[in-house]
């Protein structure tokens, strides 16, 4: 599979992501500058973490108008794969590719930690390598990761099984104490109705190399590769 990793001014997880797809998984991977308009050679486009355009105004607000995001919209509409990690998730919501918004963490702090998450949606290509309701551990690193959407949107997400990852305790219960940032319904990651576009605040690319202490994130990419 051909992977592309978007590079905005201010992206800082782009090379970590390329390290996973190119070096750990052996997939052709190229960096995609934010001014690029042609990504037709790619099967997967990843919007990485960081602080695109300095996150001025709001996280992801300026990035949504970049040429590469217009190309990403066409890529998504064609049913190809899109993954937004952390700032990438914020960009996808600002661009309208995923519903809702990410706002300031409940306790105001930037959180850099490892959290336990339940894989709620395993029918997707993205999550095909996980067991249903599997509890995994991934790093988070964000100041604006509190997922918000109006009650109607939340109900729709739940009804359509678009919640992919939920913050939970070690036994898989989505408790208030296990919710690091105040996200509604403990939501950590969602997908669009078609399931080809996924956004998540946790960092799977930082939990893919055994040298870094965990490989729960690698299964996300392995699952996708196994489905094509």
């Amino acid at each position: 599979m051909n992977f592309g990793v978007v590079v905005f001014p201010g992206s800082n997880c782009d090379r970590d992501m390329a390290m996973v797809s190119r070096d750990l998984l052996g997939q052709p991977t190229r960096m995609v500058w934010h001014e690029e308009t042609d990504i037709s050679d790619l099967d997967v486009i990843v919007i990485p973490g960081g602080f695109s355009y300095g996150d001025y105004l709001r996280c992801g607000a300026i990035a949504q108008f970049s040429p590469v995001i217009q190309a990403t919209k066409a890529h998504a509409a064609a049913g190809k794969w899109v993954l937004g990690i952390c700032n990438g998730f914020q960009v996808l919501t600002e661009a309208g590719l995923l519903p809702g918004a990410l706002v300031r963490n409940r306790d105001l702090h930037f959180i850099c930690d490892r959290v336990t998450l339940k894989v709620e949606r395993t029918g997707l290509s993205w999550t095909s390598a996980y067991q249903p309701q599997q509890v995994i551990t991934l790093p988070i690193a964000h100041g604006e990761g509190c997922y918000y959407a109006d009650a109607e949107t939340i109900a729709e997400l739940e009804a359509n099984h678009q919640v992919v990852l939920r913050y939970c305790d070690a036994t898989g219960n989505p408790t208030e104490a296990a919710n690091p940032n105040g996200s509604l319904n403990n939501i950590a990651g969602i997908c669009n109705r078609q399931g080809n576009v996924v956004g998540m605040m946790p960092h799977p690319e930082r939990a893919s190399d055994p040298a870094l202490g965990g490989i729960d994130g690698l299964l996300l990419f392995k699952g996708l590769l196994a489905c094509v």
Partner: protein
Amino acid sequence: MTQQNYHAKIYVTLRPSVLDPAGTAVQSGLGHLGYDNVEQIRIGKYIELSITAETQPLAEAQLDRMCDQLLANTVVENYRFELTEIATHPESATAAAGA
């Protein structure tokens, strides 16, 4: 067609249903200073800009679009703006033309 300059003051505020932890923290700070009669602090954004348009309704329509597209995220924020006409001085216009 004559163009007119307007000054816009744009207020972007969190929708009432969205929690404002920063506002809560500031309220608690004011409480520590003894201002225990303060409630419902909400922190928003204030944006100023000047805009040129033929008429005020045209400027307002454009500002509406700017707010919807970029300045506010209407999933979590509301916005309102005030527009005032900036008087153009004939002398300064002449000076600018001469420059």
